[in-house]
């Protein structure tokens, strides 16, 4: 079909345009079965113990393996490197039996020693996902029993231990040691894969695309029929949507509610709109500035136009307190503020700013349009209290830097929290424990009472008692009004109907797992 002479191709360039650009490529892709995923996030670092963010998670969960995988709704741990495991009754000791078939890409078997090496490297670097097991696992915790058996002794019980394991990847010690350098192999792993996953990186064009190909002779059995996949960076969500609509991409992961509406009923496109444990709230500076006044915080909480926020969010639901709906211990009967101007003015009168007349500051991540919209909702709401709002777009690193101290932290600090594991501890600890102060997840809020509840709940192994503790935790937090509890946005994915065997799971669902997928 494309056996044209040069002259023909030149004269027929315009005629070629349509067929070559569209049909030709489709035919090509079919033969090779390459899945294209459109996402707006780049993958600047491949190091499994450094990189974070859903795009890096996508790369890492496909090119590396962890002891267990996560699957289903609600998410459950299932075997990956570990073929089976046992836990002690007090929840402090886990023993994993490794799959004897497991091999790294260079053919070396995945051993218990590799597990130990990886955990210790993660703890040593103390970056990336290390926080998930901070204080739970230390450098002596991981003990190889034999080549295929590894024992992990927790420093203290951690109910969600199996839930975090999918995000702690195992590297090939041989490859890393050979390229250790002076930085523990960070330079090497930044752009090289030393894992055992079913996929490897074939082509990496920073800021543009990452192409994966199936590892030949990989140890994993079964899986879908994909020969490759492309993680394509597409900044505009509308472009992602159009690409899926036109079949130029198979999956788009960052779509907005408007995009989903536009795709509705589009032939060949499947919409996935599912609840997810991703919270959005606007944190208030409880330590510095006018909002240190609890009555002002309450006034703001009652003045906020929750309905407008929900309208602007599209596919979402309002949060009831700090925890996402449906998670363990969630209290649906919790009384939370809803827009009520009388009540808001009542609280305002009690505060030091009874007349309003102040100007507060909200920072948000430039480019995150939902945050901008909610900023405007807040601005509109505060005006009714006679309070002005200065909305400042900022780059994320600057936002993070501003969270370092109460003095630099803005009055309003909007933040998304994505649950990497389906346990209330994920959000409770990260977002409300005072040990996290100075970090972006919880810049300033600190309450001894809440701290105590979180710590007790986290190491409690009895589920009923845990639930009780979390109910108390939610009540205590709402009492303090540290946040404007916002929305749970639904996860919105669009997919070509020829993508098969995709199963939604509410944790990190945009970090697509390629292994099971097939293209018709």
């Amino acid at each position, binding site marked *: 079909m494309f056996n044209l002479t040069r002259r023909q191709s030149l004269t027929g360039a315009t005629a070629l345009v349509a067929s070559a650009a569209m049909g030709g490529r489709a035919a090509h892709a079919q033969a090779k079965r390459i899945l294209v995923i459109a996402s707006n996030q780049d993958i600047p670092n491949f190091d499994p113990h450094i990189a974070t963010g859903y795009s890096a998670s996508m790369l890492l969960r496909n090119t590396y393996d962890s002891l267990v995988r996560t699957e289903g709704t609600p998410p459950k741990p299932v075997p990956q490197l570990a073929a089976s495991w046992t836990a002690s009754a007090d929840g402090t000791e886990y023993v994993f039996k490794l799959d004897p078939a497991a091999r790294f890409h260079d053919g070396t078997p995945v051993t218990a020693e590799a597990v130990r090496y990886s955990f210790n490297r993660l703890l040593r670097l103390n970056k990336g996902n290390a926080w998930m097991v901070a204080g739970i696992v230390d450098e002596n915790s991981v003990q190889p029993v034999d080549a295929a058996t590894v024992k992990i002794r927790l420093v203290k019980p951690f109910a969600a231990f199996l839930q975090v394991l999918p995000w702690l990847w195992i590297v090939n010690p041989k490859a890393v040691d050979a390229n250790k350098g002076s930085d523990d192999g960070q330079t090497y792993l930044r752009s090289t894969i030393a894992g055992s996953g079913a996929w490897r990186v074939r082509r990496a064009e920073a800021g543009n695309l990452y192409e994966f190909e199936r590892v030949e002779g990989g140890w994993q059995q079964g899986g879908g029929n994909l020969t490759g996949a492309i993680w394509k960076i597409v900044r505009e969500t509308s472009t992602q949507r159009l690409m899926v609509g036109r079949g130029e991409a198979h999956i788009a992961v960052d779509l907005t509610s408007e995009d989903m509406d536009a795709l509705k009923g589009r032939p060949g496109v499947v919409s996935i709109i599912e609840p997810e444990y991703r919270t959005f709230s606007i944190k208030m500076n409880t330590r510095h500035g006018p909002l240190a006044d609890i009555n002002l915080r309450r006034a703001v909480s009652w003045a906020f136009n929750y309905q407008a926020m929900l*309208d602007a969010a599209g596919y979402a639901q309002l949060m009831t307190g700090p925890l996402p709906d449906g998670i363990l211990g969630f209290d649906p009967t919790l009384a939370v503020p809803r827009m009520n101007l009388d009540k808001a003015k009542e609280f305002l009168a009690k505060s030091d700013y009874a007349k309003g007349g102040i100007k507060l500051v909200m920072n948000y991540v430039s480019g995150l349009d939902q945050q901008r919209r909610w900023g405007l909702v807040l601005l509109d709401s505060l005006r009714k209290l006679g309070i002005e709002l200065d909305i*400042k*777009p900022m780059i994320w690193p600057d936002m993070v830097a501003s969270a370092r101290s109460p003095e630099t932290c803005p009055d309003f600090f909007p933040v998304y929290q994505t649950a990497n594991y389906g346990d209330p501890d994920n959000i409770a600890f990260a977002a409300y424990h005072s040990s996290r102060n100075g970090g972006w997840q919880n810049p300033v809020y600190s309450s001894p009472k809440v701290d105590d509840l979180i710590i007790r709940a986290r190491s409690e192994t009895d589920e009923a008692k845990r639930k009780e503790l979390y109910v108390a935790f939610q009540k205590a937090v709402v009492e303090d009004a540290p946040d404007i509890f916002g929305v749970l946005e639904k996860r919105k994915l669009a997919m070509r109907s020829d993508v098969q065997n995709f199963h939604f799971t509410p944790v990190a669902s945009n970090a697509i797992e390629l292994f099971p997928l097939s293209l018709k």
Partner: protein
Amino acid sequence: MSASATPDARASAVAARRQNWRRAAYRFQQSWLSIVGLAIVVLLFVAAVAGPSLVPYPADIAGGINTATRFEAPSIAHLFGTNELGQDVFTLVIAGARISLLSGVAVVVLGALAGTIVGALAGYYGGWTDEILMRIADLKLTLPSLILAMAVAAALGAGLVNTIIAIALTWWPGYARLVRGEVIAKKEELFVQVAQALGAGTGRILRRHILPNIVSPIIVKMSLDMGFAILTVASLGFIGIGVKPPTPEWGSLLSIARNYMPDYWWTAMFPGLAIFLAVFGFNLLGDGLRDVLDPRARR
């Protein structure tokens, strides 16, 4: 002519000037394109000055929202439809005229001011001052101004003032060159030499004798630059390094609305058209003015 002081000659000079103006006005009117440009610019100024009191939903300008009426298509109630927060796009676009005009003028004025100072110093002192200042200006001209402006704006942080400063910083070399040339030419003229001989200070000579004489080329250049300044402000807004919400700046309106294409096309189309019209208007006008005021360009 020695007769320049006689009343007769003065009257004829006045008549000649009036004749020149008449001729200029005639030529300007001859060109219907310039008239169209003038009309657009006048419209812009009206929108900028009286906009907030003309628009149907003035509350939306300061960030008022109405999420019950999101994404409504253009209708009588909402001429340009509504956006993702139920704000009236017509209102925002009209209000944007003030932002664009203000920032365009500010950029051009700041750029001209800085350029004039640099150019005047370089031209007046000559020698090393001239050499150094002009080399810097030349180098500056080789650098990509948009990228530079973006970098400076990003470093300074979002906000209209920062955007204006960032763009103005890349704007001065053109004026510096222009002014330097004119100053060097004027410096040699008799009235300056006389003032120098009478012991007037440098600042005074520049301020009182030279600068007033080079105002008109600067103004012509400023008028020609206006459209481009507005375009640059909008470009930064479009990239996302621009104003803070809720400022209804056209470029950032378009940048946000881009995600709603093609389904909610009105949110993008009208801000885009507004940028185009504003720039087009100033360019038409500037072109017409240059044709009239700069005899060399007229053919």
